[in-house]
């Protein structure tokens, strides 16, 4: 049972990781590409971390919860990275399919 759960989590996590990357590959402009990794990968890695927590809680005498910390870090940092990247892209005026509001052009 646990093994199935683990396997499911692992496959899901890996799939989302891949989907995030696919977004990076397939979407037509930078701002759209930004969506893929920032969201999908957080969940992907999140699933893997849960899998890891379960696995190590099972295989050692104590609970393994330190994976929570990685998730915490990621949930804080990934959006900030995305925000900064978007900001930089707006600054550089990279090609965008969406109409860029004039407010960005200070």
């Amino acid at each position: 049972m646990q093994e199935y759960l683990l396997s499911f989590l692992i496959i899901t996590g890996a799939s989302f990781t891949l989907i995030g990357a696919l977004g990076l590959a397939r979407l037509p402009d930078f701002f759209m590409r930004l969506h893929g990794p920032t969201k999908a990968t957080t969940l992907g890695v999140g699933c893997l971390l849960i899998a890891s927590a379960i696995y190590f809680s099972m295989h050692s005498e104590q609970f393994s919860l330190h994976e929570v910390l990685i998730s915490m870090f990621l949930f804080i940092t990934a959006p900030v990275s995305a925000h900064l990247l978007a900001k930089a892209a707006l600054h550089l005026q990279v090609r965008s399919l969406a109409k860029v509001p004039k407010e960005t052009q200070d």
Partner: protein
Amino acid sequence: IYARFYLSARDDLGRFYAYLMLFMGSMLGIALSENIIQLLIFWELTSVSSFLLISYWHQREEARNGARMALTITGLGGLALLGGFILLGEVTGSYNLSVILASGNMVREHVLYQPILLLILLGAFTKSAQFPFHFWLPNAMAAPTPVSAYLHSATMVKAGVFLLARLFPALSGTAEWSWLVGGVGLITLAIGAYFALFQHDLKGMLAYSTISHLGLITLLFGIATPLAVVAGIFHIINHAIFKASLFMTAGIIDHETGTRNIRQLNGLWQYMPHTGLLAIIGSASMAGVPLFNGFISKEMFFAEAITRTSDLQLWWLLPVAITLASTFAVAYSIRFIHDVFFNGQAKNLPQTPQEPMRWMKIPVEILVALCLIIGIFPLIVQPILGPATVSALQAPLPEYSLALWHGLNAAFWMSIIALLGGGLVYICREHLFKFHDCIDVNLDGKTIYNFILDCLYSSSTRLTGLLNTNSLQNMLFVFFLFALILGITPFIGSDSAITGTRAILSLDALSLLVVIGAITTAISVVIIHRRRFVALIMIGAVGLAVALVFVKFSAPDLALTQLSVEVVTIVLLLLALYFLPQQGQLEIGVLRHSKDLLLASVAGVGATLLTWAVLTRPYENIASYFTEKSLPEGGGKNVVNVILVDFRGYDTLGEITVLAIAALGIYAMFDRLRLSGPTHDQDHREWNWDTKPLVMATFSHLLLPLSLLVAAFILLRGHNQPGGGFIAGLITSVAIIMQYLANGNTWTQSRLPANMHPLIASGLLIAVLTGIGSCFFGYPFLSSTFTHMYWPIIGDFELASAMIFDLGVYIVVVGATLLILINLGLLHQALPKSKNIKDQHLWKR
């Protein structure tokens, strides 16, 4: 005495006498040395002191040049002599003269005889101004007169022939000796005499005559019959006497008239008849006129020349040549007297001459008297000549007769021919001068010497410039090429296979992917390296791949370190890139590119093969010791960490010192360093207005305590799990860098200790003191200890002294990284605030 009056009062007499004493001492040393090395030392000292003496009037151009020329030539000889003597010492097994002289046969039969002979003769010939090294002597004439006189007629140049005489028993008696010594002597004799005739400078004439006479003596040694040696030694004595007197006379003339130009000097007889008389006697002796000492030795010389060559086919050549040389000798002697003391009136003399002071003449008078006495009663030199010859020959004294009159033999006739011919030549001198001027192609030694030296200087400069273009690219290229060649050579001709016998791991797709990704990225960086910012982004990926390799192959500690270092390095590079051109310029030169590419590729293949070769070979290592002892004796489970802080803690101490020095060095470099960054990015876009993105700032505050917690975690567990002081230090630094990124320099700076130096120092101190602590307990430096404290309630708590050491590491890393980063950030602040955003706008409008 003579010198005292000759030199004017303004000259620094003390210095002059010091040099003179040094010189005389060395000469004496040469004469008395019983050991060839000792002899050599004195020999070189004469060269040096003669340099000092000649250049005494260093304000004069010719004095400086002459001195340097003399030093160069005699120095060359001295070095040759050193070589010759060492070889000689090796052959005979001793540097002791008596031993060497006794083992003449051994020397002559030895394979090294020729080099020894050549080297020693080179030494002797340069010193004695033999052809083709004769030219330095006239050029050394710029020295003060008494010095020249003493130096050149009596002593210095005689050192060479003295050496010939001294080593005669050991070296002579072979065909090489005869041809070399005799040949050089003959040429020198002829050339010296010929040039002497055409000199217009009194001292120049005397110098060339000295050369000629030295050639004569050398020739005598070259003839190498016992009697020739006797004649040679006898002529040494005679020449010393008459030439010294003539030099002093010339000095008097110079002193009294202010010139030494023979064409200016005329009819001095009426002003200074006494000096004239002295000069006549000296010259006559020099010309070999009967009744004077020069005649007798010359006579012996003629005789020996005939004896020696009578069994050769070209026997007539030598006597003819020497007769011709003597003819010229007679001619220049006559010229010395006639042109100076008679021959009309003096023209344009700088001073009106008069008889010199009494004290100046006395030494000359004594010398001249000696000329006469020996000339008429040659036997009085017997007490000197005898022992000298014996020591030179190392054989019983041959029978010889020193007499004024030997009868009407060939030698006598040769003397007569020379005397008459000399007179004839002098009378026809005007024609000869014209002839000389015609053939004078300036091919004298001095010109050649100067040409050679000029070539040496200019070609050296050019060659040095060519070799050392002061180009970093060339230096590095040469270094890599050199290392590559050296690294490859052992494999040439080696028959062992590159691939070893060790089983290899199977490949998996993920590793292949990551490595190929890294390789492609690396190559892309090379291709786009001029787009610097993009190159930096890509470098990050390579670093990540390297970290993954560390992870894959069981090195978690390394992966952690690599990751942290990577980021800090990128931050550093970004900080620096701001002040550098964003875009590299295209480097021109296909040749350079292809050359570099070729070298890099070969080196890459080399590194690959080397790695492959090692990786496929089994090896026996000392690793098991560490894994066995780490826990029981090092007190830690993380073997890598125990190695770092314990087994090889000394390395780590060095490593953090490197980091500290780097920080200090960088800090020192920032001193007075001013740079201005661009006001626009590379696409001429203005910088964004937002210096402190709010979202980032907020979360950076939040992340700081979290990161510090992680750092503490990594630090404390390092001894047993992956981690340790260095990584913890970097995490701390990165957390603080984050504050810089988010909040800017000024804001962050004000919240940090102003001075990082004490921090670095404390860290180092902690590490060192931990090490020294063990010394107090009688253990070696850095011996560690650890205890498990079973504290009530709290439980097992391990404390290893090595962990304190790691704390020191941590502090140093934090201090050093922050010092570097803070200062890099401050670089910008040090500038006037001209690139304010508002200013930019103003400027744009």
